[in-house]
């Protein structure tokens, strides 16, 4: 009985220690990635290639999602506001929620699913097939050569994707509000311009997307680099990337919103 209890407590201790150790490894890893960023100055081609696979190839899902999110938002805002005769404010609701919350958050979630998991799988497979060790044998720093370009590409791509998502969402909202529901197109734009602040709303949304890009890229490359180099470990690492990124995005979004708009 006492032994069982001790076993349980030991398990608790082991889990705590291993998570703290993992957190520590993630931070040490981040520092070495920062140090590896200098390698991009010599070989910018590495970054371009990663921008293509991380940014450009995520574009389609972002555009389609943005369009539909904007359209649905406009439709719902219209149903809620038309009872009060305030349907001209549909654009304010669509634009503000896109810029402040939905743009950065949904883009980051899609980005984690589409690009983050791919990054983890790619780096993890390189580790499992011992390509990373091979590079080290040839005196090539794998962090500088493989990890850093992917990390930086993630950070650069996220604000771009967020801007595109929000812009396409606004266009989707416009299509539904003006073309489908017959609101006035002048009122649509002027209401939004009257209520949306450049720095307060657009600027803070972009800061959010930068933070999310940083976190998702960090989690993705770390999970790949730290994975158990078996096919099972690789699968778990990819799953963890998506789960941890999504949780981190949602939790951080609350913190950032409270800091930015909470006053």
């Amino acid at each position: 009985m006492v032994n069982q209890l001790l076993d349980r407590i030991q398990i608790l201790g082991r889990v705590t220690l291993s998570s703290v150790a993992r957190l520590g490894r993630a931070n040490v890893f981040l520092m070495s990635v920062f140090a590896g960023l200098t390698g991009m100055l010599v070989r910018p081609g590495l970054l371009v290639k990663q921008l293509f696979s991380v940014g450009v190839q995520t574009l389609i899902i972002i555009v389609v999602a943005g369009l539909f999110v904007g359209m649905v938002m406009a439709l719902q805002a219209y149903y809620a506001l038309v009872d009060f005769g305030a349907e001209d404010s549909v654009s304010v609701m669509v634009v503000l929620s896109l810029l402040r919350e939905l743009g950065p958050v949904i883009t980051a979630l899609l980005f984690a699913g589409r690009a983050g998991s791919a990054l983890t799988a790619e780096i993890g497979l390189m580790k499992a097939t011992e390509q990373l060790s091979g590079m080290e044998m040839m005196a090539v720093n794998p962090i500088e050569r493989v990890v850093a370009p992917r990390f930086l590409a993630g950070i650069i791509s996220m604000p771009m994707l967020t801007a595109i998502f929000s812009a396409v969402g606004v266009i989707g909202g416009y299509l539904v509000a003006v073309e489908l529901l017959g609101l006035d197109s002048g009122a649509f734009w002027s209401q939004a311009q009257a209520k949306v602040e450049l720095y307060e709303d657009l600027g803070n949304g972009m800061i959010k997307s930068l933070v999310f890009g940083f976190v998702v890229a960090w989690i993705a490359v770390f999970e790949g680099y730290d994975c158990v180099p078996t096919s099972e470990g690789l699968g778990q690492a990819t799953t963890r990337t998506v789960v941890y990124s999504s949780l981190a995005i949602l939790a951080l979004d609350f913190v950032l919103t409270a800091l930015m708009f909470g006053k």
Partner: protein
Amino acid sequence: MKNSRTLELMVGLFVAAGMAALFMLAMSVSNLASYGGDEGYKIKARFDNIGGLKVRSPVSASGVRVGRVTDIQYDTEGYEALVTMSIDPQYKVFPIDTSASILTSGLLGEQYIGLEPGAEEEFLIQGSEIDITQSALVLEQIIGQFLYSKADE
């Protein structure tokens, strides 16, 4: 593997699209286009009660927006609210006996300052103060007064 030219082309297009989206959001959705209120001339007005007026609330004359509220302070000498507003330089033609009142757009809408031009020959300039002001209508006070007058009958 794509060759490096198409690769770079696609990345270039992607970055350009990102910039364009940001530019479109800044220009057509946010208030960047209607900036420039800072270049206007500043006039002041004192009110007993400004109600729900806020910084950046519109200032309009005959329903046309001519400026914005830039600052709201509480004047401890006169125990009044001191509102500073910036008026667009193209409307440099408000007589010095212009009156300012705090109005509400619609029944429950936001509050704004309405300017009613007077008849003097001199115009308001940078730093002038509007003497004739009318405070915001506070719904509770009106209801209170109404109930009082009913009770008196």
